[in-house]
């Protein structure tokens, strides 16, 4: 077996990579610059807006495009639309993994912050349509009041525990509500394949 064995392995490019193009995967992972909302930034905005943070890597500003009672539609610069109802994200369009609460956003008040009565049960149920991959899951929510959060504008903090039946997708969402009953910040898990979504709402 004293043979000459050569293996030539050529890794070469028939054409070329434009190094100005970073792979999207890398782009996502290195973009962790946060956006500071100070007075100057706030005053520079013409309309109400929301700061959206998805996981640690994606930060975006979305402008309020339409409002009807507590149902808002926020549109980011790259066209992502996020629908909220009382701060709860009820539908997204344009994310890698979108969701849509089926009829819940219209008929079921998932988060009832105004006139919250601790003696009552705030257990709710909703069907949620997931994309990529497509599925429809059932989720149970239970809203509880956690008290004043002095670290965040003395707002009232609510937690919403949720579970998804057989699917191991559960946890707690949080809502910060100002004295006027407006949701000013939320932390939500909306899709099993998305990290936590944090939204801060700035009204004008």
């Amino acid at each position: 077996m004293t043979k000459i064995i050569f293996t030539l392995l050529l890794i070469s490019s028939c054409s070329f990579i434009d190094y100005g193009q970073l792979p999207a995967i890398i782009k996502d992972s290195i973009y962790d610059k946060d956006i500071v909302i100070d007075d100057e930034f706030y005053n520079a905005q013409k309309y109400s807006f929301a700061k959206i943070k998805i996981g640690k890597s994606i930060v975006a500003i979305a402008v309020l495009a339409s409002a009807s009672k507590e149902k808002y539609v926020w549109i980011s610069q790259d066209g992502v639309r996020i629908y909220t109802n009382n701060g709860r994200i009820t539908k997204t369009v344009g994310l890698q993994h979108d969701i849509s609460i089926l009829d819940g956003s219209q008929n079921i008040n998932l988060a009832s912050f105004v006139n919250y009565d601790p003696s009552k049960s705030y257990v709710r149920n909703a069907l949620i349509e997931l994309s990529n991959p497509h599925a429809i899951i059932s989720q149970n929510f239970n809203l509880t009041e956690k008290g004043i959060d002095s670290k965040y504008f003395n707002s009232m903090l609510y937690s919403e525990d949720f579970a998804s039946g057989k699917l191991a997708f559960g946890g707690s969402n949080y809502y910060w509500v100002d004295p006027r009953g407006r949701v000013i910040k939320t932390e939500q898990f909306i899709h099993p394949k998305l990290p936590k979504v944090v939204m801060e709402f700035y009204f004008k």
Partner: protein
Amino acid sequence: MLIYLLPRKRYLSVLVFIFSSLPIYAGLDDYIYPYSSPSFNEYGALGLIRMPSARFHEEGTISFHWSKNNPYTRGSIIAYPFSWFEASYQYTDVNNALYSDVESFSGNQTYKDKGFDVKFRLIKERDYFPQVAIGIRDIAGTGTFAAEYLVASKQIMVPKFLNGYNYLTNADLTFGLGWGDLSYSKFTNPLKKLDSSFDRRTLIKRTQGGEFSPGRYFSGPMGVFAGIEIPLPNLRGLKLKIEYDGTDYSEEGFPFGRESFNLAFKSIKQSQSRINYGFLYPVNNYIQISGGFTKGNTLSFGFTLSGGFGKKNPIIKSTEKLQSVDNPILRKELADGDDEILMTLAMDILRKNNIHISKGVRNGEELRVAYAQNKYMSHAMASGRAAQALDQVSPDYIKTFTLETMNAGAVMNSISIDRETFNKYRKDKLYILAKNNIKINSSKFNEDDYTFNPPFSYPYVFWRIEPDIVAQIGGPDGFFFGNARLAGRSEIKFSRKLSLNAEASIGIYDNFGELKLASDSVLPHVRSDIVKYLKQTRDYSINRLQMNYFLNPWNDFYAKVSGGLLEDMFGGIGGEVLYRPMYRNFAIGAEVWSVRQRGYNMDFSFLDYTTDTGHINLYFREPHSKVTFAVKGGRFLAGDSGVNIDFSRRFKSGLRIGAFFSLTDISKEEFGEGSFDKGFYFNLPMQAFFTNYSRSLAGWGLKPLTRDGAAYLTHSHHLWGITEPAQAYSIERDWDDLYD
């Protein structure tokens, strides 16, 4: 295995449901059991832990699998040219044997075994019938790990009465019959009733390796193997694997040290258990990690990198939008009645979209432009974008856009798009209707046909600098040698037809210093002196300096005359002609070269060896399978005569998977180890990893052995590649990109 988990009275029910179960297609399962694609066994075939299964990845998938199971460390490259065909190439480091019996030759190098495996799907899985496949391991090697098998796999669904055992949902059950190394059970081979030659395995004697051994396949005693793969719920796709191991460890590799092979220095642990256990953890859709406990005494570990590259937007979707101009109405008004302004505006908007007008003319209601582009892999997309862009600046009286794709100074195709129809279906992207009013024609460049001639000052230089790696694996001097270098590549255009291709590189880091083995080839050393070239070009090299003159004397007929340093090892002069009719699936060409071997320094020096080489080139694309056959027949560099046959399949994404072999008039002994020239390659579209469109391809090729037989000149700008847009199918295959 399943039966042992259940109460005795359920045996019958379980057996019934196994063979009558339905596959699961519930959306929720994608979340409870994510990343459910099949996984590789230790031999680089889709399967269980060591046993194969009847599973296949989708066509266009390319995978790399690495595994460690003492005494074997194995790297495999697996490709799926079709959804029914798995081809894998393995490189196994056998750690209980030396590379050679000459210590100064092999040093501490352990034995390396190369293997090529194939698996074919015979029957596709149905509701009540398993998927069945047939496979041959080590089909053309030394037979160290040779095995053949017939295997069936069935996805099973757990019925209601098994509530509480829901983790079995979607389990994949496999059962197989094996020959060769998979024949532990040693049943009598039933195939001997067909032919007595199946009774015992026959091996080729006095082989140079790399030869097929049909007398061996499915012969000798037969064994069985089985196993189950169970996805565990809500554990990020974690799978448990249990198998009955059919490996005959007294046959595989060199089991008993020197008794088995004179270079083996240590025996291999024999099996203490026939049951292997393993797990698979998918990190995401592209990476899998596996581990196992095999033979009752050996731990194993592995990982896989895998991607389905065949489809449109395979990994990352390209999101680069069509660039528009401000105030198109004003531009149309400006262009109204003034063709010079129209052409200038057209050139401006097309340039924004990386499409460069060379010439243009308006003929009544037709706007005709000749353009070059190096941005879009899909010619249909380039045409569609050009039409959408021109629509923004063209006055309403322009009814037809005629777009001519230029390359190497010639018009490759002429695409006439009816503007009204194109715009009518644009909003809904109804390309199937739009293409009915698009005509593709053959055309020949005639400078007098155009009135718009944008200034273009020659010489024009395109250049780029990029990292590059040249590597050699598996030689006796060491397993891996490589040179990371910086390569500069440029093309200087002196006129529309005359250009110079220059390539040079500067070495950054290499370990070629320890390469020492000289060629033992009895043929002229046209390739096998590669070690000398690699070692003497560590610092810098001129890889190419090739002058080209292109001609397009008639429709569908192309020619090229070239001279200079044509490739790494040869320089000279020659030419090529190609007839490539627009609406045919074939092309025919010829090339002839007079060359001299370059000095090992790859500078401007030459060695004494000179030769004349030339080929008749035939190309045929089979439309149904989309496989292109390329046959190159003639005289090769070492003076041997014969044919090189290349077959490859191109996928929607631009991925090409191919293989080749050559047969010439030299004997197996003259050729040396490997017996004949062969290899495989694939070209990955780089835009799969980016959000921008790109025509870049990353080429990866492997020849198991670098020998001198059947070597041909690898000159640049081969006409077959240059004229790719010159056949209608290269546009028609991508109509779905028309409005992207």
